[in-house]
């Protein structure tokens, strides 16, 4: 903390790259790789995998630079922030990769295939066409061409320069701007339409790697320290995507240009501004969506899915699936941001939000507040004292997501608790294990999940891991695979007693209390948030930094905003490993 660095441009800048070959191929295919900004050299800091890395020992000061593809949400939010929320994006984004429990970490492993590039291209064309259409050009384009039927380089340059800075999250170089104006000129002349020219140039920028990937531009080596620091614009992007899940706004870019983000004082001031902004909610939502694996609700994952058999769980409608994620996010935002509450309380809080559809699954009365046929409004709701449901683990977004389509799963829930909430790693099951016994709910010999699991783990190969997963998972057995409450399975009273690392309890309430008092839970949040911010596992000195974050989180009474602030103002967030790798003059030449 508090490390002084020079302002951007104050020393010879360098671009640290961790280019996967596919990304390079994509960049070439786009034909959009630009020369590095003047005064900068680009450095290929290669060889480290982009994904999680183990701590590499005391000699390593920082982890590798990351090249991260924008997530679909970041893409959408960025476009909305720059051009307005009425701009339709359409298209379908490429699947994301989860690594080390986070999509944000997997983003460092992502490239763009040819097919995916086509999708990006289609989206870019759709967006660009709307930006320059009659209804938007008056607001979004800051000048009027001398003649609409031909090129106007002055006006085009003004627009492209301003938009380019927001899209690339740094000012365009003179060469880059010249290229973009040239594209606009040629297209305008060819189509005899100034706006068609802008459309083509803008669409081209929207498929540029400079937009689609987050780069790690650095200030160059810090003498003998083994790492370099991100330059001002890379810091701005790091901050903005971390706290707002979107690209930097103009204020942040201006501060980057003035070098204010390189000083602790300037950085703290800017972080405080960002944390005070309502946009921080988007950042918090994005993080928890990632951590809690909500992407699996839309694209089913191996062990987590919202695909439910409608004959078994008729109340689990598509609306319930959508509302379930939103319920948990609202619960978290309300507790952690609105009320600046203790993170441990997310496991026990009776305060939540419901819609009538969700209330039907929960079996609680919730009068509608919107006219018939209109989308339901969210209503604050407090679980009554003694209710078996409290905290996010008892919500549909957890117990239903970590269940099978037609039956609950103590194993999946127990594993998710270990891996998602406590950051432990449970080994995958060995191959050729039959789960038939566990999933057969019709066998009268084994009417309950507990009895089926007891029979299943007679196999000693399975027993080891099941001892980790089953005891906490069985405590959630009062919840059906759709998240609704039950007391019996196949007519037999459910024994929801459970245990976690030697602590015994009964049912979800006991589990909630146990998790809330387990130091591993807040420690896991800190680790995940640090990895989310870095885009990779901490390495070298960063490991100690995370330990300090955990200590400080306890001292701050487990308050999320304080943790966000500490991470965002940490030098570690803006350092990358410096290996003194071969110097290249441009990204393009590196690609070639």
């Amino acid at each position: 903390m508090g490390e002084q660095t020079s302002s951007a441009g104050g020393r010879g800048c360098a671009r640290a790259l961790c280019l996967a070959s596919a990304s390079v191929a994509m960049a070439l295919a786009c034909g959009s790789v630009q020369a590095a900004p003047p005064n900068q050299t680009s450095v290929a800091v290669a060889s480290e995998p982009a994904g999680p890395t183990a701590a590499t020992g005391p000699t390593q000061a920082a982890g590798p630079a990351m090249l991260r593809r924008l997530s679909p949400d970041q893409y959408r939010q960025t476009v909305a922030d720059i051009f307005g929320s009425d701009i339709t994006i359409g298209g379908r984004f490429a699947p994301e990769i989860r690594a080390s429990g986070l999509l944000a970490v997997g983003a460092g492993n992502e490239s763009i295939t040819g097919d995916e590039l086509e999708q990006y291209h289609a989206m870019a064309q759709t967006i660009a066409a709307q930006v320059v259409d009659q209804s938007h050009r008056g607001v979004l384009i800051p000048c009027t061409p001398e003649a609409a039927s031909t090129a106007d380089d002055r006006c085009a340059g003004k627009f492209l320069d301003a938009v380019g800075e927001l899209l690339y999250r740094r000012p365009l170089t003179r060469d880059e701007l010249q290229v973009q104006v040239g594209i606009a000129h040629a297209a305008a002349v060819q189509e005899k339409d100034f706006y068609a020219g802008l459309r083509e140039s803008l669409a081209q920028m929207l498929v540029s790697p400079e937009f689609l990937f987050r780069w790690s531009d650095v200030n160059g080596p810090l003498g003998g320290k083994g790492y370099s620091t991100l330059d001002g614009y890379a810091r701005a992007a790091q901050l903005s995507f971390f706290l707002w899940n979107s690209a930097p706004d103009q204020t942040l870019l201006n501060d980057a240009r003035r070098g204010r983000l390189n000083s602790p004082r300037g950085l703290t001031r800017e972080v405080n501004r960002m944390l005070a902004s309502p946009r921080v909610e988007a950042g918090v939502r994005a993080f928890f969506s990632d951590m809690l694996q909500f992407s699996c609700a839309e694209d089913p994952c191996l062990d987590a899915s919202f695909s439910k058999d409608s004959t078994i769980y008729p109340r689990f409608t598509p609306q319930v699936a959508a509302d379930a994620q939103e319920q948990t996010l609202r619960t978290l935002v309300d507790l952690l941001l609105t009320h600046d509450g203790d993170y441990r309380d997310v496991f026990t809080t009776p305060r939540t939000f419901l819609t009538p559809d969700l209330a039907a699954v929960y079996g609680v009365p919730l009068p509608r507040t919107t006219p018939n046929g209109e989308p339901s409004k969210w209503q604050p709701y407090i679980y009554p004292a003694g209710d078996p449901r409290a905290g996010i683990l008892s919500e549909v977004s957890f117990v239903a997501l970590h269940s099978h389509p037609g039956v609950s799963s103590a194993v999946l829930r127990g594993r998710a608790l270990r891996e998602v909430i406590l950051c432990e790693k449970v080994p995958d099951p060995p191959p050729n294990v039959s789960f038939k016994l566990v999933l057969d709910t019709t066998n009268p010999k084994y009417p309950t999940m507990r009895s089926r699991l007891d029979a299943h783990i007679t196999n000693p190969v399975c027993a080891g891991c099941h001892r980790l997963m089953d005891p906490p998972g069985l405590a959630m057995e009062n919840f059906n695979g759709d998240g609704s409450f039950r007391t019996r399975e196949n007519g037999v009273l459910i024994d929801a007693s459970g245990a976690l690392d030697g602590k015994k309890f009964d049912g979800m309430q006991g589990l909630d209390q146990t998790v809330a008092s387990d130091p591993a839970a807040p420690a896991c949040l800190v680790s995940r948030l640090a990895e989310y911010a870095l885009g990779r596992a901490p390495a070298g000195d960063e490991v100690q930094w995370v330990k300090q974050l955990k200590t400080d989180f306890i001292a701050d009474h487990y308050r999320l905003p304080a943790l966000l602030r500490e991470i965002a103002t940490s030098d570690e967030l803006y350092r990358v490993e410096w290996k003194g790798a071969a110097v290249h003059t441009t990204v393009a030449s590196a690609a070639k």
Partner: protein
Amino acid sequence: MGDWVGLFKPKPLFPLTVAGISLGAILSIAPLQSAAGGETRSYVLSSFTNAAYSTKDDCQGGIDPDQTEQYKLDLLALGMPLEKIQKVMDGYPGFATMAVLVNRGRIDGKPVNAYTNPASAIDPKLHMVTGHYAYGFNLDGKGADSPNSFQDPATHQSGIDNQLFRVFGCAKNFRGPPANATPPMFYGIEWSTLRPSFPAWVITITGDDLSRDGPVTVSIDRSIDHVLLDAAGNTEAYTTFRIDPAPGSVNVFQGRLQNGVVTLTDHHDLHLVGDPVLISDLDLSQTHLRLTLEPNGELDGLVGGYQPWWEVFLPIGHGGENFEENQGIDVPGLYYALKHLADADPDPKTGENRRISVAWQLEAVPAFVVPAEGYAPPELSAASNPK
């Protein structure tokens, strides 16, 4: 962000048997409690159709023909030559043909719309049920001595008054099991299609302990909310319905629970505002109920009484040729049948009965029923409420 609401959460309805226990007290609902009011279960109707117990030989005159055949008979009754009938029907369902069919009524010898003027058409004399069995109730209290009465196949009670079954029972889409593979199609499909778009009907049963025999209070109300559909397309259970405070659809009866079946001990009138396409109003006198609390938490059974026959006719009559073609029942024929078989409430002037004995079959799923806090029914505008 609204105020936090600490709503009481009742125990799950199923498999636990206690539904909204004390819900009324907690929510300040004052619905309809019995004197003791120890346990309340609420439901929303998920199905509503004419009660039909159709047997193989219950229509000695046969099943009503398809409507295209019936049209030919209607035209023949008008005196139209067979050749012309064939020519007209060759153009079916073209505009010219439909104009002839729709306007098969006659007033002063001139063609008029047979649906808006059903008495102007010749009575095609639909087939009536001649069988021995029908679901329903002994409404007139005469038992087996009641003329034209049936025996209920479920309770074996004699003297069942259900002339609506006699009217509908020989029309294909109004017939039900066991002779028919499916429940009556007409009301089944109409209810299924319309239910998400009209205010729901809800039932609340309150008693000391609904797992034991004893007195109960039964409330039948209209909600201001529509039903929601679940992932299987059925009426979603455990959703919440606000009661329409308009007094026109609030009904409270005293009854008795015995062996899991709720019946009424008072039989006053019932009124529920319905949907104009399905059943515009459900007005019953001598109201009877037989509702079974099913082990799966649902409710099914019958509601019956004497209903103005015009209420039954009106939605079908308004459906005109579409209902005739799709549901296979001749509209003027239905008019005459209902009128002739009406068996209660004679008009003091004409002596003609204005009500017909009915039994409707219903199914309901568990729901929460609460007052409509802060809801005021829309006032009639000056234009629609002239003084």
